[in-house]
């Protein structure tokens, strides 16, 4: 068997497994328990947050510790849309994403003046300011927060239809709808990341991360490229934040802008999975979920174990678990290599011979 055939077969097998896996995941609300739907919803939303952070830190070199700002803004705006303006919560999710994106523009204006650790601290500070502002929003409960009115999710777009279709309770139907939306978000984020990173702009982004001045010397505008990625990731993170809080049904500044929940765990997922790779966050989210289930009854031991694992990976497998797998097997599930833009023979022109 030739190596190219083996590689092609492995790729076909990988695609087939991925398709079966996606179909299986779509079917979970139909065949699985409600607890499983809720668990997988958590995994999927963490995965989307991780994919967004991975795009920022792994590919654009923007190590943000302020992603909780976008989660919180998405959540708060979704609550405002639902409670104050009477909109459907799913419309609120979309508006929440847009609000997070709009907030990221002035945030980028300040944060992009900082580099490295200062950028990380700057984004954290901005996120904390956003939390303080949210805690002053008295119409949404101020510092103690507020809850979605009872029955809001039962009337949410698509829920009555799913309720009749699956013959389940309104609460289970609402879980199914938010689960499918989280699955769609994860698949969309994965696809968009893959297509973007294989494009000319994706190559430019990685060049900016590698060497800013050299990137400028080849005509890349680093600020424009990083700003584009930063705002788009804010949109994705805001959408996810709003979706998460539809299921939680209650929002407080502490919960919505929690740095541990929405940034620290996300960083952990990306680091142990493999920063700067696309399968890495998927693997990291699964490992995180498994650890969370295994160690749920051990209180703080759970956090200590997460920390120790994170340190071990950083010391002994700097490219994460996915890096270990690709190093051992040579198989890359989502390779980001760039093909030449056009057949070389069509554009080839002779170079003067050496005289």
């Amino acid at each position: 068997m030739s190596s190219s055939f083996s590689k092609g077969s492995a790729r076909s097998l990988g695609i087939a497994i991925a398709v079966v896996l996606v179909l299986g995941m779509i079917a979970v609300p139909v065949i699985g328990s409600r607890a499983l739907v809720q668990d997988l919803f958590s995994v999927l939303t963490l995965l989307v947050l991780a994919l967004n952070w991975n795009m920022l830190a792994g590919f654009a070199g923007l190590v943000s510790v302020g992603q909780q700002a976008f989660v919180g803004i998405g959540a708060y705006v979704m609550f405002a849309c639902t409670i104050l303006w009477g909109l459907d919560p799913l419309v609120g999710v979309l508006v929440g994403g847009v609000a997070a994106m709009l907030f990221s523009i002035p945030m980028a204006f300040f944060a992009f003046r900082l580099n490295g650790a200062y950028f990380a601290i700057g984004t954290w500070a901005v996120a904390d300011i956003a939390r303080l502002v949210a805690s002053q929003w008295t119409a949404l409960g101020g510092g103690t927060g507020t809850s979605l009115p009872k029955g809001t999710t039962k009337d949410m777009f698509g829920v009555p239809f799913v309720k009749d279709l699956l013959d389940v309770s309104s609460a289970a139907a609402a879980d199914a709808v938010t689960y499918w939306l989280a699955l769609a978000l994860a698949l969309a984020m994965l696809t968009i990341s893959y297509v973007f990173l294989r494009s000319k702009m994706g190559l430019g982004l990685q060049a900016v991360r590698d060497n800013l001045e050299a990137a400028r010397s080849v005509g890349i505008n680093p600020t424009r490229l990083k700003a584009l990625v930063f705002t788009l990731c804010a949109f994705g993170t805001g959408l996810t934040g709003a979706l998460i809080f539809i299921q939680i049904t209650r929002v407080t500044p502490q919960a919505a802008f929690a740095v541990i929940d929405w940034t620290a765990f996300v960083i952990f997922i990306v680091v142990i999975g493999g920063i700067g790779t696309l399968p890495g966050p998927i693997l990291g989210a699964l490992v995180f979920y498994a650890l969370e289930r295994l160690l749920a009854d051990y209180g703080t031991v759970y956090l200590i174990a997460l920390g120790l694992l994170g340190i071990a990976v950083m010391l002994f497998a700097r490219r994460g678990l996915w890096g270990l797998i690709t190093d051992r097997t040579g198989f890359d599930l989502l390779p980001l290599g760039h093909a030449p833009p056009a057949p070389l023979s069509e554009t080839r022109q002779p170079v003067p011979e050496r005289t």
Partner: protein
Amino acid sequence: MSEGEPLLAVEALTAHYGDFQALFGVDLHLDPGGCVAIIGANGAGKTTLMRTIAGILRAGAGRVLLDGAEIQRLAAPEVLRHGVAMVPEGRKLFPSLSVEENLLIGAHERKGDGRWNLETIYDLFPILRERRRNPGTALSGGQQQMVAIGRALMSNPRVLLCDEISLGLAPVVIRDIYAAVPRIRESGTAIVVVEQDIGQALKIADYVYCMMEGRVTLSGRPSDLSREAIHDAYFGVSHDLA
């Protein structure tokens, strides 16, 4: 320098790093398809001049003209679009990208086809064809310099700015790198080379500028410049005293 219209003209250019003035009224002319060398000791302002022409560093007073059009207020991507590409000092390859990706990214701002593409770069530096899948930074210093030059050529520039391309390389490697210069010139690309090796600069350039402390202290055709005059301009001391 010449009677015809220069392709690139730098007129009374100044540049600053904060409060520190690094360039003081620098003049430079480059003919179409020509090659000029800028020599000078460390801190003379050679790299600053290149970075200012390339739009990486903001120009103070003075002008940079490309085919008669002012480009000194343009940002680096715009300058590149106008046809001025730079090979930065120290190569500055992108470590996470392969040799081929490093070359492809040079065509980031290119519109349409041109003389330089992957094949013609591989013809110019055949070793890169063999190493095309390797990480750019896994190559030897000389091969990395070839990638850096190829990357800049991929934008099909009219002017190629080469900053210290022989720095840290063995003489035999430097010879291979400079062997490509005539072929690049024959393709219609004019070259500005920053070089500390005076002998090398005099060998490849039509015209030489010597800089010291941000000023051009001597300029002329290599055949018109005596070693003593270059020595004085380079070190800023009289040859007789040195």
